[in-house]
Protein backbone atom coordinates (compact mmCIF):
# COMPACT_ATOMS: atom_id res chain seq x y z
CA UNK A 1 0.00 0.00 0.00
CA UNK A 2 2.83 2.38 0.88
CA UNK A 3 4.57 1.47 -2.36
CA UNK A 4 1.46 2.36 -4.36
CA UNK A 5 1.01 5.62 -2.45
CA UNK A 6 4.62 6.66 -3.10
CA UNK A 7 4.29 5.62 -6.76
CA UNK A 8 1.23 7.84 -7.17
CA UNK A 9 3.10 10.78 -5.61
CA UNK A 10 5.97 10.27 -8.07
CA UNK A 11 3.42 9.94 -10.91
CA UNK A 12 1.76 13.23 -9.87
CA UNK A 13 5.14 14.97 -9.82
CA UNK A 14 5.97 13.62 -13.27
CA UNK A 15 2.73 14.96 -14.75
CA UNK A 16 3.14 18.38 -13.10
CA UNK A 17 6.79 18.65 -14.10
CA UNK A 18 6.17 17.55 -17.69
CA UNK A 19 3.28 20.00 -18.02
CA UNK A 20 5.81 22.74 -17.29
CA UNK A 21 8.86 21.42 -19.13
CA UNK A 22 6.88 20.41 -22.23
CA UNK A 23 10.06 19.57 -24.19
CA UNK A 24 9.74 15.76 -24.40
CA UNK A 25 5.98 15.85 -24.71
CA UNK A 26 5.99 18.37 -27.55
CA UNK A 27 8.90 16.70 -29.35
CA UNK A 28 7.04 13.37 -29.43
CA UNK A 29 3.72 14.78 -30.55
CA UNK A 30 5.34 17.02 -33.14
CA UNK A 31 7.35 14.12 -34.56
CA UNK A 32 4.18 12.00 -34.76
CA UNK A 33 2.20 14.74 -36.45
CA UNK A 34 4.92 15.49 -39.01
CA UNK A 35 5.35 11.78 -39.79
CA UNK A 36 1.64 11.28 -40.49
CA UNK A 37 1.47 14.46 -42.58
CA UNK A 38 4.54 13.32 -44.53
CA UNK A 39 3.02 9.89 -45.20
CA UNK A 40 -0.23 11.58 -46.21
CA UNK A 41 1.52 13.54 -48.95
CA UNK A 42 4.18 11.05 -50.01
CA UNK A 43 2.26 7.77 -50.20
CA UNK A 44 -0.38 6.95 -52.76
CA UNK A 45 -2.95 5.28 -50.60
CA UNK A 46 -5.73 4.97 -53.18
CA UNK A 47 -7.20 1.49 -52.94
CA UNK A 48 -4.45 0.27 -50.59
CA UNK A 49 -5.30 -2.18 -47.82
CA UNK A 50 -4.03 -0.19 -44.87
CA UNK A 51 -4.95 -2.70 -42.21
CA UNK A 52 -1.58 -4.45 -42.77
CA UNK A 53 0.95 -1.92 -44.00
CA UNK A 54 -0.76 0.87 -42.10
CA UNK A 55 -0.29 -0.84 -38.76
CA UNK A 56 3.44 -1.21 -39.45
CA UNK A 57 3.73 2.51 -40.22
CA UNK A 58 1.78 3.39 -37.11
CA UNK A 59 3.99 1.34 -34.78
CA UNK A 60 7.14 2.63 -36.41
CA UNK A 61 6.07 6.18 -35.55
CA UNK A 62 5.12 5.14 -32.00
CA UNK A 63 8.48 3.41 -31.52
CA UNK A 64 10.46 6.56 -32.39
CA UNK A 65 8.09 9.14 -30.89
CA UNK A 66 7.68 7.16 -27.67
CA UNK A 67 11.40 6.91 -27.08
CA UNK A 68 11.77 10.69 -27.39
CA UNK A 69 9.64 10.94 -24.27
CA UNK A 70 10.50 7.84 -22.27
CA UNK A 71 14.26 8.26 -22.74
CA UNK A 72 14.08 11.42 -20.70
CA UNK A 73 12.35 9.72 -17.75
CA UNK A 74 15.47 9.32 -15.65
CA UNK A 75 17.88 11.47 -17.65
CA UNK A 76 16.13 14.59 -16.36
CA UNK A 77 16.62 13.35 -12.78
CA UNK A 78 20.39 13.63 -13.30
CA UNK A 79 20.26 17.41 -13.88
CA UNK A 80 20.22 18.27 -10.18
CA UNK A 81 20.85 14.84 -8.72
CA UNK A 82 17.18 14.44 -7.88
CA UNK A 83 17.30 10.71 -8.50
CA UNK A 84 19.42 10.35 -5.36
CA UNK A 85 16.93 12.45 -3.43
CA UNK A 86 14.14 10.19 -4.67
CA UNK A 87 16.03 7.09 -3.55
CA UNK A 88 16.53 8.58 -0.10
CA UNK A 89 12.86 9.47 0.26
CA UNK A 90 11.23 6.11 -0.46
CA UNK A 91 11.69 2.97 1.57
CA UNK A 92 11.02 0.78 -1.49
CA UNK A 93 12.70 2.05 -4.65
CA UNK A 94 10.17 0.04 -6.68
CA UNK A 95 7.84 2.99 -6.02
CA UNK A 96 10.06 5.22 -8.17
CA UNK A 97 9.95 2.71 -11.01
CA UNK A 98 6.18 2.30 -10.69
CA UNK A 99 5.56 6.07 -10.63
CA UNK A 100 7.72 6.64 -13.70
CA UNK A 101 6.17 3.61 -15.41
CA UNK A 102 2.66 4.99 -14.86
CA UNK A 103 3.71 8.38 -16.23
CA UNK A 104 5.21 6.76 -19.34
CA UNK A 105 2.13 4.57 -19.75
CA UNK A 106 -0.16 7.61 -19.51
CA UNK A 107 1.94 9.41 -22.12
CA UNK A 108 2.09 6.41 -24.47
CA UNK A 109 -1.68 5.97 -24.19
CA UNK A 110 -2.31 9.60 -25.12
CA UNK A 111 0.20 9.35 -27.97
CA UNK A 112 -1.50 6.17 -29.21
CA UNK A 113 -4.94 7.78 -29.33
CA UNK A 114 -3.54 10.90 -30.98
CA UNK A 115 -1.95 8.76 -33.69
CA UNK A 116 -5.07 6.63 -34.16
CA UNK A 117 -7.09 9.78 -34.67
CA UNK A 118 -4.55 11.28 -37.10
CA UNK A 119 -4.09 8.09 -39.08
CA UNK A 120 -7.85 7.69 -39.40
CA UNK A 121 -8.30 11.29 -40.46
CA UNK A 122 -5.29 11.79 -42.75
CA UNK A 123 -4.32 8.31 -43.96
CA UNK A 124 -7.83 6.86 -44.13
CA UNK A 125 -6.81 3.92 -41.98
CA UNK A 126 -9.80 1.80 -40.95
CA UNK A 127 -9.63 2.71 -37.28
CA UNK A 128 -13.08 4.13 -36.57
CA UNK A 129 -14.92 0.80 -36.60
CA UNK A 130 -12.26 -0.95 -34.56
CA UNK A 131 -11.63 1.53 -31.76
CA UNK A 132 -12.31 -0.88 -28.89
CA UNK A 133 -10.09 -3.75 -30.10
CA UNK A 134 -7.43 -1.20 -31.06
CA UNK A 135 -7.59 0.37 -27.59
CA UNK A 136 -7.17 -3.12 -26.12
CA UNK A 137 -4.09 -3.85 -28.27
CA UNK A 138 -2.56 -0.40 -27.68
CA UNK A 139 -2.97 -0.74 -23.91
CA UNK A 140 -1.18 -4.10 -23.88
CA UNK A 141 1.64 -2.93 -26.14
CA UNK A 142 2.11 0.32 -24.25
CA UNK A 143 2.24 -1.56 -20.93
CA UNK A 144 5.15 -3.68 -22.19
CA UNK A 145 6.84 -0.74 -23.91
CA UNK A 146 6.63 1.40 -20.76
CA UNK A 147 8.18 -1.29 -18.52
CA UNK A 148 11.19 -1.78 -20.70
CA UNK A 149 11.57 1.88 -21.69
CA UNK A 150 11.46 3.00 -18.04
CA UNK A 151 14.01 0.42 -16.94
CA UNK A 152 16.44 1.12 -19.79
CA UNK A 153 16.14 4.85 -19.09
CA UNK A 154 17.10 4.22 -15.45
CA UNK A 155 20.01 1.98 -16.42
CA UNK A 156 21.48 4.44 -18.91
CA UNK A 157 20.70 7.74 -17.22
CA UNK A 158 24.15 8.03 -15.62
CA UNK A 159 26.05 7.06 -18.76
CA UNK A 160 27.71 9.59 -21.00
CA UNK A 161 25.85 9.84 -24.30
CA UNK A 162 22.79 8.15 -22.84
CA UNK A 163 20.54 9.94 -25.34
CA UNK A 164 22.36 8.15 -28.16
CA UNK A 165 22.65 4.83 -26.37
CA UNK A 166 19.00 4.69 -25.34
CA UNK A 167 17.45 3.81 -28.71
CA UNK A 168 20.35 1.47 -29.53
CA UNK A 169 19.63 -0.59 -26.43
CA UNK A 170 15.85 -0.25 -26.36
CA UNK A 171 14.81 -0.91 -29.96
CA UNK A 172 16.27 -4.42 -30.34
CA UNK A 173 14.63 -5.48 -27.08
CA UNK A 174 11.28 -4.22 -28.32
CA UNK A 175 11.32 -6.23 -31.57
CA UNK A 176 9.06 -9.09 -30.36
CA UNK A 177 6.64 -6.61 -28.80
CA UNK A 178 6.34 -4.57 -31.98
CA UNK A 179 5.98 -7.65 -34.19
CA UNK A 180 3.02 -8.65 -32.04
CA UNK A 181 1.74 -5.07 -32.02
CA UNK A 182 1.79 -4.75 -35.82
CA UNK A 183 0.16 -8.16 -36.33
CA UNK A 184 -2.62 -7.57 -33.78
CA UNK A 185 -3.30 -4.00 -34.95
CA UNK A 186 -3.66 -5.30 -38.50
CA UNK A 187 -6.06 -7.99 -37.32
CA UNK A 188 -8.08 -5.47 -35.31
CA UNK A 189 -8.35 -3.06 -38.26
CA UNK A 190 -9.44 -5.93 -40.53
CA UNK A 191 -12.08 -6.83 -37.91
CA UNK A 192 -10.44 -10.22 -37.31
CA UNK A 193 -10.51 -12.14 -34.02
CA UNK A 194 -7.88 -11.13 -31.47
CA UNK A 195 -8.53 -13.68 -28.76
CA UNK A 196 -6.71 -16.94 -29.32
CA UNK A 197 -4.03 -15.29 -31.45
CA UNK A 198 -0.49 -16.48 -30.59
CA UNK A 199 0.63 -12.83 -30.89
CA UNK A 200 -1.75 -11.92 -28.09
CA UNK A 201 -0.26 -14.63 -25.87
CA UNK A 202 3.23 -13.33 -26.67
CA UNK A 203 2.14 -9.79 -25.82
CA UNK A 204 0.65 -10.76 -22.45
CA UNK A 205 3.69 -12.86 -21.60
CA UNK A 206 6.05 -10.00 -22.53
CA UNK A 207 4.05 -7.55 -20.39
CA UNK A 208 4.01 -9.75 -17.28
CA UNK A 209 7.61 -10.91 -17.59
CA UNK A 210 9.14 -7.47 -18.09
CA UNK A 211 6.97 -5.69 -15.53
CA UNK A 212 7.76 -8.19 -12.77
CA UNK A 213 11.47 -8.38 -13.69
CA UNK A 214 11.83 -4.58 -13.78
CA UNK A 215 10.07 -4.11 -10.44
CA UNK A 216 12.30 -6.72 -8.81
CA UNK A 217 15.57 -5.55 -10.34
CA UNK A 218 15.07 -1.81 -10.08
CA UNK A 219 16.77 -1.52 -6.68
CA UNK A 220 19.95 -2.97 -8.19
CA UNK A 221 19.68 -0.78 -11.29
CA UNK A 222 19.19 2.31 -9.13
CA UNK A 223 22.30 1.89 -7.01
CA UNK A 224 25.83 2.06 -8.31
Amino acid sequence: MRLLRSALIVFGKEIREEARRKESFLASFFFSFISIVLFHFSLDLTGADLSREGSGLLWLIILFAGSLFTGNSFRKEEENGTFQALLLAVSDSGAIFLGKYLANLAFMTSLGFFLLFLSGALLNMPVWNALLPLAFVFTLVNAGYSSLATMISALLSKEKGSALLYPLVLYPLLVPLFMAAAALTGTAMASGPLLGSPWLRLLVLFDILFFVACMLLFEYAAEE
Partner: protein
Amino acid sequence: MGAVPFLEVREVSRSYGRASALEKVSFFAEKGRNTLVLGPNGAGKSTLLRILALLTRPSSGIILWEGEPVCAKKRGEFRTRLGYLSHQLFLYNHLSAEENLEFFAALYDIPAREQKIVGLMEQFGLASHRSKLAGELSRGMQQRLSLARLFLSDPELLILDEPFTGLDEESSEALRSFLLSLRRFNKAVLLVTHEVREAREIADDLLILDRGRTRYFGEAPPSGKIMDLYHEKTEGSPP
Protein backbone atom coordinates in the same frame (compact mmCIF):
# COMPACT_ATOMS: atom_id res chain seq x y z
CA MET B 1 30.88 7.63 23.44
CA GLY B 2 28.19 5.05 24.27
CA ALA B 3 28.75 1.29 24.18
CA VAL B 4 27.49 1.05 20.60
CA PRO B 5 28.38 3.88 18.21
CA PHE B 6 25.49 5.41 16.28
CA LEU B 7 27.18 4.71 12.95
CA GLU B 8 30.07 2.34 12.52
CA VAL B 9 32.01 1.65 9.36
CA ARG B 10 34.08 -1.54 9.45
CA GLU B 11 36.77 -2.18 6.86
CA VAL B 12 34.75 -0.81 3.97
CA SER B 13 36.37 -1.12 0.54
CA ARG B 14 35.14 -0.12 -2.86
CA SER B 15 36.76 -0.75 -6.22
CA TYR B 16 35.77 0.12 -9.76
CA GLY B 17 37.22 -2.57 -11.97
CA ARG B 18 40.89 -2.76 -11.00
CA ALA B 19 40.97 0.73 -9.51
CA SER B 20 40.47 0.84 -5.79
CA ALA B 21 38.62 3.91 -4.46
CA LEU B 22 38.51 2.85 -0.81
CA GLU B 23 40.56 0.29 1.09
CA LYS B 24 39.41 -1.04 4.44
CA VAL B 25 38.22 2.27 5.82
CA SER B 26 37.00 2.08 9.42
CA PHE B 27 35.62 4.78 11.72
CA PHE B 28 32.51 5.64 13.69
CA ALA B 29 30.25 8.64 14.17
CA GLU B 30 28.25 9.66 17.20
CA LYS B 31 25.06 11.68 17.56
CA GLY B 32 25.66 15.29 18.58
CA ARG B 33 29.11 15.32 16.98
CA ASN B 34 30.32 16.64 13.65
CA THR B 35 32.88 14.58 11.80
CA LEU B 36 34.98 16.44 9.25
CA VAL B 37 36.29 14.26 6.41
CA LEU B 38 39.40 15.62 4.72
CA GLY B 39 41.54 14.29 1.92
CA PRO B 40 43.16 15.32 -1.34
CA ASN B 41 41.40 14.86 -4.68
CA GLY B 42 40.85 11.19 -5.40
CA ALA B 43 41.16 10.19 -1.74
CA GLY B 44 37.74 8.49 -1.87
CA LYS B 45 35.78 11.01 0.22
CA SER B 46 32.76 11.25 -2.05
CA THR B 47 32.72 7.49 -2.63
CA LEU B 48 32.73 6.98 1.12
CA LEU B 49 29.82 9.41 1.60
CA ARG B 50 27.81 7.77 -1.18
CA ILE B 51 28.37 4.39 0.46
CA LEU B 52 27.23 5.81 3.81
CA ALA B 53 24.19 7.34 2.11
CA LEU B 54 23.45 3.82 0.82
CA LEU B 55 23.51 5.01 -2.78
CA THR B 56 26.54 2.89 -3.66
CA ARG B 57 27.27 -0.61 -2.41
CA PRO B 58 30.67 -1.32 -0.91
CA SER B 59 32.75 -4.09 -2.48
CA SER B 60 33.44 -5.41 1.02
CA GLY B 61 33.07 -4.42 4.66
CA ILE B 62 30.00 -3.56 6.67
CA ILE B 63 28.12 -0.54 7.95
CA LEU B 64 26.30 -0.72 11.27
CA TRP B 65 23.54 1.62 12.45
CA GLU B 66 23.20 1.47 16.21
CA GLY B 67 24.92 -1.90 16.07
CA GLU B 68 22.60 -3.31 13.38
CA PRO B 69 24.21 -4.22 10.04
CA VAL B 70 22.66 -2.49 7.05
CA CYS B 71 21.54 -5.55 5.12
CA ALA B 72 20.20 -5.63 1.55
CA LYS B 73 16.58 -5.91 2.68
CA LYS B 74 16.72 -2.87 4.93
CA ARG B 75 18.74 -0.47 2.79
CA GLY B 76 15.63 1.46 1.69
CA GLU B 77 14.40 1.74 5.25
CA PHE B 78 17.76 3.04 6.53
CA ARG B 79 18.00 5.49 3.64
CA THR B 80 14.88 7.33 4.80
CA ARG B 81 16.59 7.98 8.15
CA LEU B 82 19.49 9.92 6.68
CA GLY B 83 19.86 13.23 4.93
CA TYR B 84 22.35 13.63 2.11
CA LEU B 85 23.41 16.90 0.56
CA SER B 86 26.05 17.13 -2.12
CA HIS B 87 27.20 19.95 -4.40
CA GLN B 88 24.17 18.92 -6.46
CA LEU B 89 21.01 20.54 -5.19
CA PHE B 90 18.49 17.68 -5.38
CA LEU B 91 15.80 20.14 -6.46
CA TYR B 92 13.32 20.12 -9.32
CA ASN B 93 13.90 23.31 -11.30
CA HIS B 94 10.40 23.28 -12.77
CA LEU B 95 8.64 23.01 -9.42
CA SER B 96 8.28 25.95 -7.08
CA ALA B 97 10.17 26.08 -3.79
CA GLU B 98 7.02 25.09 -1.94
CA GLU B 99 6.12 22.33 -4.43
CA ASN B 100 9.60 20.84 -4.05
CA LEU B 101 9.13 20.62 -0.29
CA GLU B 102 5.55 19.34 -0.63
CA PHE B 103 6.66 16.59 -2.98
CA PHE B 104 9.42 15.29 -0.72
CA ALA B 105 7.29 15.71 2.41
CA ALA B 106 4.59 13.57 0.81
CA LEU B 107 7.14 10.90 -0.14
CA TYR B 108 8.51 10.85 3.41
CA ASP B 109 4.90 10.68 4.62
CA ILE B 110 5.48 13.46 7.13
CA PRO B 111 2.54 14.19 9.43
CA ALA B 112 1.19 17.77 9.52
CA ARG B 113 3.41 18.56 6.56
CA GLU B 114 1.88 21.95 5.67
CA GLN B 115 2.82 23.28 9.08
CA LYS B 116 6.30 21.78 8.82
CA ILE B 117 6.88 23.26 5.35
CA VAL B 118 5.77 26.74 6.44
CA GLY B 119 8.05 26.48 9.50
CA LEU B 120 11.07 25.38 7.45
CA MET B 121 10.53 28.07 4.83
CA GLU B 122 10.52 30.69 7.54
CA GLN B 123 13.53 29.17 9.30
CA PHE B 124 15.57 29.22 6.10
CA GLY B 125 14.42 32.65 4.91
CA LEU B 126 12.44 31.28 2.00
CA ALA B 127 8.96 32.52 2.92
CA SER B 128 8.97 35.26 0.31
CA HIS B 129 10.19 32.85 -2.41
CA ARG B 130 7.70 30.04 -1.86
CA SER B 131 5.99 30.28 -5.26
CA LYS B 132 9.15 30.93 -7.28
CA LEU B 133 10.40 28.06 -9.42
CA ALA B 134 13.48 26.46 -7.86
CA GLY B 135 15.37 26.99 -11.12
CA GLU B 136 14.80 30.74 -10.86
CA LEU B 137 16.25 31.10 -7.36
CA SER B 138 19.81 32.30 -6.76
CA ARG B 139 22.43 29.67 -5.88
CA GLY B 140 22.36 30.76 -2.25
CA MET B 141 18.58 30.48 -2.07
CA GLN B 142 18.67 27.11 -3.80
CA GLN B 143 21.15 25.91 -1.20
CA ARG B 144 18.82 27.09 1.54
CA LEU B 145 15.95 25.25 -0.12
CA SER B 146 18.14 22.14 -0.30
CA LEU B 147 18.81 22.42 3.42
CA ALA B 148 15.10 22.87 4.13
CA ARG B 149 14.42 19.71 2.08
CA LEU B 150 17.12 17.93 4.04
CA PHE B 151 15.40 18.73 7.33
CA LEU B 152 11.90 17.75 6.24
CA SER B 153 12.34 14.21 7.43
CA ASP B 154 14.29 15.13 10.57
CA PRO B 155 17.16 12.75 9.67
CA GLU B 156 19.32 11.24 12.38
CA LEU B 157 22.43 11.20 10.21
CA LEU B 158 23.42 14.12 7.98
CA ILE B 159 25.88 13.53 5.17
CA LEU B 160 27.13 16.72 3.57
CA ASP B 161 29.40 16.55 0.54
CA GLU B 162 30.97 19.92 -0.33
CA PRO B 163 27.98 21.97 0.82
CA PHE B 164 29.93 25.26 0.57
CA THR B 165 30.56 24.87 -3.17
CA GLY B 166 29.30 27.83 -5.17
CA LEU B 167 28.03 29.78 -2.18
CA ASP B 168 28.65 33.49 -1.73
CA GLU B 169 30.18 34.85 1.48
CA GLU B 170 26.83 35.52 3.13
CA SER B 171 25.36 32.10 2.34
CA SER B 172 28.57 30.35 3.46
CA GLU B 173 28.36 32.14 6.78
CA ALA B 174 24.69 31.20 7.16
CA LEU B 175 25.50 27.57 6.41
CA ARG B 176 28.41 27.53 8.85
CA SER B 177 26.24 28.94 11.65
CA PHE B 178 23.59 26.44 10.80
CA LEU B 179 26.01 23.50 10.96
CA LEU B 180 27.26 24.77 14.31
CA SER B 181 23.69 24.80 15.60
CA LEU B 182 23.18 21.16 14.65
CA ARG B 183 24.95 19.90 17.77
CA ARG B 184 21.92 21.04 19.76
CA PHE B 185 19.65 18.80 17.68
CA ASN B 186 21.65 15.68 18.49
CA LYS B 187 22.43 14.76 14.89
CA ALA B 188 25.41 12.81 13.67
CA VAL B 189 27.00 14.91 10.93
CA LEU B 190 29.60 13.86 8.36
CA LEU B 191 31.02 16.71 6.35
CA VAL B 192 33.35 16.64 3.38
CA THR B 193 34.73 19.96 2.24
CA HIS B 194 37.73 21.53 0.56
CA GLU B 195 36.93 24.74 2.41
CA VAL B 196 38.75 23.80 5.61
CA ARG B 197 38.59 27.43 6.72
CA GLU B 198 34.78 27.16 6.75
CA ALA B 199 34.63 23.83 8.52
CA ARG B 200 37.37 23.74 11.13
CA GLU B 201 35.29 25.44 13.84
CA ILE B 202 32.45 22.98 13.49
CA ALA B 203 34.51 19.77 13.54
CA ASP B 204 34.44 17.57 16.65
CA ASP B 205 36.05 14.54 15.03
CA LEU B 206 38.36 14.30 12.08
CA LEU B 207 38.79 11.59 9.47
CA ILE B 208 41.69 12.01 7.04
CA LEU B 209 41.71 9.87 3.91
CA ASP B 210 44.45 9.56 1.35
CA ARG B 211 44.46 7.25 -1.66
CA GLY B 212 41.45 5.39 -0.30
CA ARG B 213 42.98 4.64 3.10
CA THR B 214 42.34 6.00 6.57
CA ARG B 215 45.34 8.15 7.61
CA TYR B 216 43.81 9.53 10.78
CA PHE B 217 40.64 9.13 12.75
CA GLY B 218 40.05 10.69 16.14
CA GLU B 219 39.13 13.84 17.93
CA ALA B 220 39.78 16.95 15.87
CA PRO B 221 42.72 19.03 17.14
CA PRO B 222 42.14 22.72 17.89
CA SER B 223 41.06 24.53 14.74
CA GLY B 224 44.48 26.06 14.06
CA LYS B 225 46.16 22.64 14.14
CA ILE B 226 43.87 20.76 11.77
CA MET B 227 45.84 21.69 8.66
CA ASP B 228 49.17 20.80 10.33
CA LEU B 229 47.85 17.36 11.12
CA TYR B 230 46.37 17.06 7.64
CA HIS B 231 49.68 17.92 5.92
CA GLU B 232 51.54 15.54 8.19
CA LYS B 233 49.21 12.64 7.33
CA THR B 234 48.94 13.31 3.60
CA GLU B 235 52.52 14.31 2.87
CA GLY B 236 51.53 17.88 2.12
CA SER B 237 48.76 17.29 -0.43
CA PRO B 238 46.31 20.19 -0.81
CA PRO B 239 42.84 19.40 0.66
